[in-house]
């Protein structure tokens, strides 16, 4: 079971954003989309989730063309975490997460809401007003909302999918690790995860499959070891980059140094 996108072309206004992109993401793997600012990562994710309707190309999820799926059906197969959510009214964290249960037949599952809060490291935060939370906490509440929507990585109709747009961008290093572990865990249990990533180290640590983009095109697709190379990264980001190259001195900190099992601490 997989997500297969073929020849995705997308035009927004007058500018061509995506020039015939291909992506194959397997369930059970964490697929990362990386690339410089403006390379079309978020646009691709939005095309994959039908927020943008591509001008041409096909996208199938678990073997079904997503263009033909009704929103309530699609919602039980995949959930989407946006980069940023602006809320118009003072909802509590629990009320936000409940919105994730909209497509479920039985939306009164309170225990799931509490479990999701615990999973993102915010146990007991249900009663807090969303607007009074910090940016990182808000992002994790949204992640909890996304998680309750497709709680079981493998559902009755096949694997479920998480689409995450920069899931760790506003988080501190400990929470970056714990959220990435959570996503990797989801994939390990059979679900599919597609994440737009900015941090190359975290990508190297957690991704099973990487799509490297530049100017709306695919530069490379494959396992991290094949995509995260000096040549490809230097071409993509437009500056000289070297992997596995330690600086001669000064202070430097890598997420790889954080003890594994961080998620349990938080």
């Amino acid at each position, binding site marked *: 079971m997989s997500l297969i996108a073929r020849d995705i072309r997308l035009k927004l206004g007058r500018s061509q954003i995506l020039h015939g992109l291909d992506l194959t993401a397997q369930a059970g793997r964490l697929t990362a989309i990386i690339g410089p600012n403006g390379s079309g990562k978020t646009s691709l994710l*939005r095309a994959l*989730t*039908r*927020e943008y309707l591509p001008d041409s190309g096909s996208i199938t999820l678990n073997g079904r063309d997503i263009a033909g799926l*009704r*929103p*309530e*059906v*699609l*919602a*039980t197969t995949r*959930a*989407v975490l*946006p980069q940023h*959510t*602006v*809320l*118009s*009214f*003072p*909802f*509590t*964290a*629990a*009320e*936000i997460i*409940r*919105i*994730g249960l*909209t*497509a479920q037949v039985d*939306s009164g599952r*309170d225990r799931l*809401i*509490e479990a999701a809060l615990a999973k993102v490291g915010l146990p*007991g*935060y*249900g*009663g*807090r*007003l969303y*607007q*009074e939370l910090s940016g990182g906490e808000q992002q994790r509440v949204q992640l909890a909302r996304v998680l309750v*929507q497709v709680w079981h990585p493998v559902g009755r109709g096949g694997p479920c999918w998480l689409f995450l747009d920069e899931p760790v961008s506003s988080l501190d290093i400990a929470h970056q690790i714990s959220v990435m572990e959570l996503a990797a865990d989801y994939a390990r249990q059979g679900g599919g995860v597609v994440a737009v990533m900015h941090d190359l180290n975290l990508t190297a640590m957690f991704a099973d499959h990487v799509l490297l983009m530049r100017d709306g095109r695919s530069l490379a697709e494959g396992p991290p070891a094949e995509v995260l190379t000096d040549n490809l990264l230097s071409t993509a980001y437009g500056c000289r980059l070297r992997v596995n190259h330690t600086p001669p001195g000064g202070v430097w900190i890598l997420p790889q140094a954080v003890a594994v099992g961080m998620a349990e601490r938080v």
Partner: protein
Amino acid sequence: MAMLEATRVRLAGDRSHIGRRLAALLFLLLVVMSLLSLGHGASGVSATQMLLDWLAGREPAQVDRIIMYSIRLPRLLTGLLVGAALAVSGAMMQGLFRNPLADPGLLGVSAGASLGAISAIVLGGALPPAIAVLTGWHLVPIAAFAGSWVAMFTLYGIATRQGRTSVATMLLAGIAMSAMIAALSGLIIYRADDQQLRDLTFWSLGSLAGASWTKIAVAGPVIALALALSPLLARGLNGLALGEAAAAHVGLHVQRVKTAAILITAAATGASVAIAGAIGFVGIVVPHLLRLISGPDHRWLLVNSALLGASTLLAADMVSRTIVAPAELPIGIITALIGGPFFLWVLLSNRRVLDA
């Protein structure tokens, strides 16, 4: 069993139990307000006394029956319908536009209704007698209702491209269209004579004084249907609070929710403006107050808005009938006079929550 029920842990942050209790309380309030409203008026007829007499098998005086049946009861029902319609419409527009200050006026509904009413008042005399006899004094509400729908559909058409309605376009186009309609109304008012101007002023400030069974028969079913359908949109409006994209991702048919919210609001507001004129502030103050008490979850917000909106309008109507008795003030003056400062106070004392 009772113990089990009581000790069942409630999810922290879930305010639906507050909404539920509030609904019961507001229902009681509405019953009380309705009885007070029935017993309130120029003659000293008491609703409770009449009820007691009737229960005791005593026949009420003929004049009392007439006052109750043809003046106070239609007035009460009109107040209930219009108050509920305005508050629910306000809550839905705020949910749709994701803005606590939105109101049905953004749909051009009020401006369109005004133009319809103004045209009817000023130009109605020029109608061929045959048609004038047919429509009679219903001409003003009918024209207002028609005006509200024409304005709303024009705006909806402008803002909808390829089956998607842009709420932002609608907001801006609504401002432009309201200005154009106001200019057109001004042009017609320019030709009005003194009596017509008085009628216009009274209409534009709103009043329940013209309540009648015929008007209720026309507007009642429209408003009742709109109110009955509104709870179906609760989950959709909750989802829209996260933005349109996220609402679609959680499984909602966003375009359907938008279309339904616009249609229901236009129907409810159009009908209430038609029978009671333009009454401001109820649609903003009532949902806002309820959000402060039980949160923005539309599952209770819409129902409670209907209940509190009705009570609020009945209270404002009683004030408008008393304050310069035996004359009457337009009810819109009361709602604005009380609603305006109240709204400011709510805003200022909750600035922190609102700004965040």
